[in-house]
């Protein structure tokens, strides 16, 4: 706050440093490995050259990512509420949630494809599967970490289970919830991408970024492949940015993570 210019300079500086490293690594690579690490300008060129197919793919993947993410948030929230009810319920259900998370996509993909069809549906479900676990675990931990004194206050006033949950445990769990959200935001685009290349479909408008990635990879178009990755990252930044804004709105007024020193 006191040095606002640092707020811009430092991130910018690290950014430039990274780019410099990038060029340095590339320079250090032996001539015949250079193709593996295209330079930012090559990637930029590939981005423009493939802008049409990439933007179509981005749109498809974004759809999958957004829907899968939203589904994961909603479902995980509901699950966390149930899990937070008691130790017993956690012991009974956690293992199955873990199994859901641990089922290799390679096992799930064929079932999904045959069941809901390749394409958006499958991509959404895979994104969901990849995002939901960090959300469940964080939200549950948040819900069960509520300050005991506050819980007693609510018990005292015979708050209904509903009130205790939504007026007390949920707000108190927000810092945990947003931590989970921050993780899921980054997993959503990558989940959609994975979903796309394990159960996507090129039917209709031609698949998403995962599809493109595989094609570019098999065709040795590395600049285009990195351009695909770059688009994925940008998608992730958009998600993460949205989560940060929400987190700021929900926590900045009262949570210590936004107030390290007083002034």
């Amino acid at each position, binding site marked *: 706050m006191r040095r606002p210019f640092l707020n811009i300079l430092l991130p910018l500086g690290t950014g430039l440093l990274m780019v410099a490293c990038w060029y340095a690594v590339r320079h250090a690579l032996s001539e015949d490995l250079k193709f593996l690490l295209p330079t930012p300008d090559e990637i930029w060129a590939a981005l423009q050259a493939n802008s049409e197919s990439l933007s179509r793919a981005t749109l498809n993947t974004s759809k999958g990512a957004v829907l899968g993410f939203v589904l994961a948030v909603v479902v995980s929230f509901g699950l966390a509420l149930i899990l937070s009810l008691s130790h017993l319920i956690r012991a009974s259900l956690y293992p199955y949630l873990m199994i859901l998370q641990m089922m290799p996509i390679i096992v799930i993909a064929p079932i999904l494809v045959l069941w809901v069809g390749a394409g958006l549906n499958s991509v959404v479900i895979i994104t969901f599967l990849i995002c939901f676990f960090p959300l469940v675990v964080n939200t549950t931990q948040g819900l069960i970490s509520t300050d005991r*004194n*506050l819980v*007693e*206050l*609510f*018990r*005292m*006033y*015979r*708050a209904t289970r509903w*009130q205790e949950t939504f*007026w*007390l445990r949920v*707000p*108190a769990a*927000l810092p945990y919830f947003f931590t989970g959200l921050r993780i899921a935001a980054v997993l959503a685009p990558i989940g959609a991408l994975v979903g796309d290349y394990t159960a996507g479909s090129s039917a209709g408008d031609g698949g998403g970024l995962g599809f493109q990635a595989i094609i570019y990879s098999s065709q040795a178009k590395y600049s285009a492949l990195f351009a695909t990755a770059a688009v994925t990252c940008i998608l992730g930044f958009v998600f993460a940015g949205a989560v940060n804004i929400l987190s700021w709105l929900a926590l900045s*007024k*009262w*949570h210590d993570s936004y*107030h390290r020193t007083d002034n």
Partner: protein
Amino acid sequence: MPVPPIVAFNHVVKRYGDGPVVIDGIDLTAAPGDFISLIGPSGCGKSTLLRLIAGLSPLTGGSLTVDGRTPEDAAAELAFVFQEPTLLPWLTVAHNIEVAQQLRGVSAADRATARRRAVELVRLHGRDSAYPRQLSGGQKMRVSLARALTLEPKILLLDEPFGALDEMTREHLNEELLDIREKQAWTAFFVTHSVAEAVFLSNRIIVMSANPGRIHREVRVDFPYPRTEATRLSRPYHDLVAEVSGLLRSVENT
């Protein structure tokens, strides 16, 4: 008059987990309208006693009825000012005060009226939109007090509500408390370390001894209500304060 007691302890014993006995063989009945002060050394089990009444902690032995029911069932009749402010950090002062009423389903308009009155009472005007982390220690306790007072309960449990307040504010709130009592006619259990305060407010003072927590002696305070500044200056008042202080000293020296 054989009115049924509103709170009745019967050989109550309490220990936390497998720790030592904290409260041992408490027998105590409160009639409706009693204002009972609990005084005793730190750690003798005063807060624990209130928590038992509120149904926040299970008894280890004996029995306890509140308003003729189990403490759990009677909780709707209670208001409790905890020893710590226990505010929700994400709510402003105004919302923190209203939250108890909200839990009881009071309408927004009535809540706002009650809240404004309570804010006035605890002298926190103008701080309605502050968050707990922006308040001083005494201000937080006053918010907590205001929250309980909006409830108009049958039984009021107060755990050192004025410990963090200056004498003036304290006296002001003492008088306000008695005033409200006239209107709302609750039964109060009041933990305090100020003997003077206990004598001024209550009709019964329970002096507790520690290790394990027991009732050492009960002192009746027969000054008529309403009590005023004049009561504080009266001779019998001073004598009683001295007597209770003496009792307390004797308890702690054993």
